[in-house]
Every structure is written in C-alpha cells, then in structure tokens.
C-alpha cells in the first residue's frame, strides 16, 4: 500500500466535501435527528417507567452506536459512489493506484467522516440528554472498534456488490443496516428473538456489542468472551470483504466491466 496514493483518494474526498453543503450536511443531519428523536423518547420513557432502569443509557446509547456503525459503512460506500457518479474508474484503475491503495483510501475517508458524525452525536447526546460514555471509561472502546471494523467490512462488501452489478445496484446498499438491525439486538436482548433469528444473531458482531453494552449500563460486568467473539467475527468479515472485493475487481478486469462500467453488465 502506497501512502501517497492512499492520501490522493482521501484528498479527493476532502476536496469534494470542502465545497459541497450537500455532502457535509448528511454527516450531521441524520444522526442529529436520530439523537433528538430517541433522546426525547428515552426521556419520556424514564418519566413513565419504574425507577431504576435508565432508558437514556440503554436506548439512546444503542442508537448512537448503531448510527456510528451505519456512518462507518456509508463512509466507505459514499467515497466509492463518488467514482461511480463521476465515471472515474478508468482514470483511477489505469493508473499506478492499486486496489489496496484505493480501499485504504476509502477506509481512511470513512474514518474521517464517521469520526465527525460520532463527535456530533456524543456532544449532542451528552449536552442535551445527559448521556455520558465517559462514565463507563475505556470499556466501550473495544465495542466501538468492533462496530467500526464490521462497518468497514460491510462497506467493502457493498462496494464489491455495486462494482459487480453496476451503478443502479447502489439501491441495495442503503438498506443494509436496517436489514441487520432486527437480528443484531440493537434495542432489545437477543433472547427475545425467535430461535432462527438468534442463530443469525450469533454470526453478527454487533449482537455481541449490544448485549455487552446493555450488561454494562445496567451495572453488570461484561464477560470477556463476547468482545472476543465480536472482534474475531468482525475481523473475519473484513478479511472476507477484502477477498470479495479483490475477486470482483479481477472479474471486472477479466470481462471488461471496468472499461465499460456504465453499461452495467458485459452480457
């Protein structure tokens, strides 16, 4: 991986954001709406439910982490879509830029954009609704990292899907977090799910994160193995994502799809 070439991909994203309100605003807008909506909902629930259970920490904290995961994934895919929309594949892939430089650039872009979203959410949730992750110390760091790695992995898989199926398939990418959420136990324990959904949850890293998070905010200590299982699974998804992207790229080069991407297929 060449740092200068990776930086070129990040710089391209920075240039695009610098002059575009329509690219900068979504970094804050949707997460702000979510935090405000769920913030007031959890505040209301705290007022009507029996004392002792903190909905702000459990539900608003879950929303914040889930939005972070979604932002990470979309950070990768949005940076990739910029090349789809500007028909830039030929210029990039006919250059010394390798697919690993390119993927590295997409990931680095996502780190930057998702960090902005995370900072905005933490600030808003803390100042307005009194949600403080600082109270739990560094224990949340591994869980954030698991969500980050899984978000990157899904982002890379989603880009491979769009590379393989053409520009119109970007529609498939947007609902991916919403499809995963019911299985991942973001708002409820996995134990309330039917058996088959619990089996699916076992192979989803976020399920371990949210189970552990609920344990921590309700005053229990989180077992070490869920974090390890979540981290191992996230790493496996990332490796699988990179493998799928590499294979898809090779297919696109072999069939001529890269050179004729706007045609959407070579058949």
């Amino acid at each position, binding site marked *: 991986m060449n740092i200068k*070439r990776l930086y070129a991909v990040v710089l*391209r994203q920075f*240039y695009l954001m610098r002059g575009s309100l329509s690219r900068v605003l979504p970094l804050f807008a949707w997460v702000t709406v979510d935090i405000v909506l769920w913030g007031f909902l959890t505040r209301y629930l705290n007022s009507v439910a029996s004392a002792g259970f903190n909905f702000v920490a459990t539900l608003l904290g879950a929303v914040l982490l889930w939005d972070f995961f979604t932002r990470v994934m979309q950070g990768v895919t949005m940076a990739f879509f910029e090349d789809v929309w500007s028909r830039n594949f*030929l210029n990039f*892939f*006919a250059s*010394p830029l390798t697919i690993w430089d390119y993927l590295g650039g997409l990931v680095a872009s996502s780190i930057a954009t998702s960090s902005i979203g995370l900072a905005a959410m933490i600030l808003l949730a803390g100042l307005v609704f009194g949600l403080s992750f600082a109270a739990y110390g560094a224990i949340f760091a591994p869980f954030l990292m698991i969500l980050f790695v899984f978000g990157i992995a899904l982002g890379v898989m989603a880009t491979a899907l769009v590379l393989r199926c053409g520009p119109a398939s970007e529609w498939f990418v947007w609902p991916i977090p919403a499809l995963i959420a019911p299985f991942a136990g973001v708002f409820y324990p996995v134990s309330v799910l039917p058996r088959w959904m619990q089996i699916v949850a076992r192979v989803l890293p976020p399920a371990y994160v949210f189970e552990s998070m609920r344990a921590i905010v309700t005053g229990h200590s989180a077992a070490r193995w869920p974090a390890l299982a979540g981290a191992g699974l996230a790493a496996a998804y990332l490796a699988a994502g990179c493998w799928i992207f590499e294979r898809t790229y090779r297919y696109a080069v*072999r069939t*001529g799809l890269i050179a004729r991407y706007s045609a959407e297929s070579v058949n």
Partner: protein
Amino acid sequence: MKKMLLVSELRKNFGAVAAVDGVTFSVSPGEIVGLLGPNGAGKTTTISMILGILEPSGGQILIEDRSRMNFAAVYAPLPGNLTVTENLRIFGLIYGAEDFPKRLAELLKQFDLEKYRNTKAGLLSSGEQTRLGLAKAMLNKPRLLLLDEPTASLDPAVAREIRAEIKDFTGRGQGAVLWTSHNMHEVEEVCDRVLFLSHGKILLEGDPKALPERHGKKTLEDLFVAVAREPLSL
C-alpha cells in the same frame, strides 16, 4: 534498441468474438506509432489491455517502466466536480509527480489552462477538458504515452498545437507514443509508423507517407476506407 512497449500475440475474446486476434507490435523510444482502424477494429481494446484495465485472453505485453506510463482518452474525462488544480494534484500524487508545484505551473502553461486553474473540470469546454486530460497524462513525464483520439474534440488550431506538443515530447527523446485517431491527415503529420487494425488483426504496417502508394491508393484516407470496407482486397 530497447523497446518502450512490446506486444506479442495479444488476444482478447469476448465470448466467441475475437476482439483482438494475435496482435504483435512494438514502440521504440522517440517513436509515435499510430493505431488505426474502423470502429470496432480492436484499438481501444488493445489500449485497455496495455493500461491493465482489461485482462488479455492470451499473449504478452511488456512495458519498459509501467510507473512511467500514462494515458489520455476522450472517453475518460477527469472528474467534473473537481477543479483543474485539484484534479492535477490528486493524479500528481497517484502518478508520483516530482516537485508538484513546479510541474503544475509548467503543465498549466503548456496546455493553456492557467486561467482555468480554479474552474471545475465539468465547466470546461470539451477542448479544454481534452487539454486537461493531456496535462494529466504528462504529470509523471511519461516514457510511454497512450493517446486514444486525443484531438477528437479540438478545433483545428488547438489540435495543431497539441500535435506540436506531442511531437516535441517525443522529439526531445523523452518517450514514445501510441496514438489512435480517425483523422488521417493528422496521422500522416504526426506518426512515424502506423498499424492498420481490422477485426482484431493488424493488416498493414509501415510509414504513413509511403503506405498508400505501396497499396495503390492516393491518400492514407483512401487506404483507411479500403481497409475498413474490403480488408481482404489488400
């Protein structure tokens, strides 16, 4: 003499169709080679394989220094939502352009883009976009330059200037050029050697000034038409 580009028995099949069928040629330092042929002859497919964005079905491509190769093509405009300078900076990083500020100033002047340095590429005229593409192609001082119809959207005056730039580029011994064009006058003026491609095969090869007479045609354009319509008659 060491070749800048050596292509041997190159093939590309799309299903049962042979888009490129056993093409062999080379490009030497300081040489401008024209790759000619009717639409669908296999020119762009050949260039795509040299660029590495299309995998050959067979054959071999040897490039003297892949990191010092660059290209410009009418079908690969630079992102229209970035300015001229932003585009050149990004591709300067990708191609490892040395002393970028100096190189940027040189290229903006050389391709008459100074007044558009902060203009988005998408707002440029097609001729200005072509010049921007050529400036990008020169960022890394390439030793092998692939130009797919580089003057297709330029007015005659600008096209002449671009031809002079490219000839000057090879004249200084800096590199070699593989050039496709449908403008036979341009090819005659610029190219040291031409390859006529039809149905994925090279039918003719030689000096563009001598080839027409050798095949009983008055001009290179007449020869092109003959190749396109009746390749078997040659």
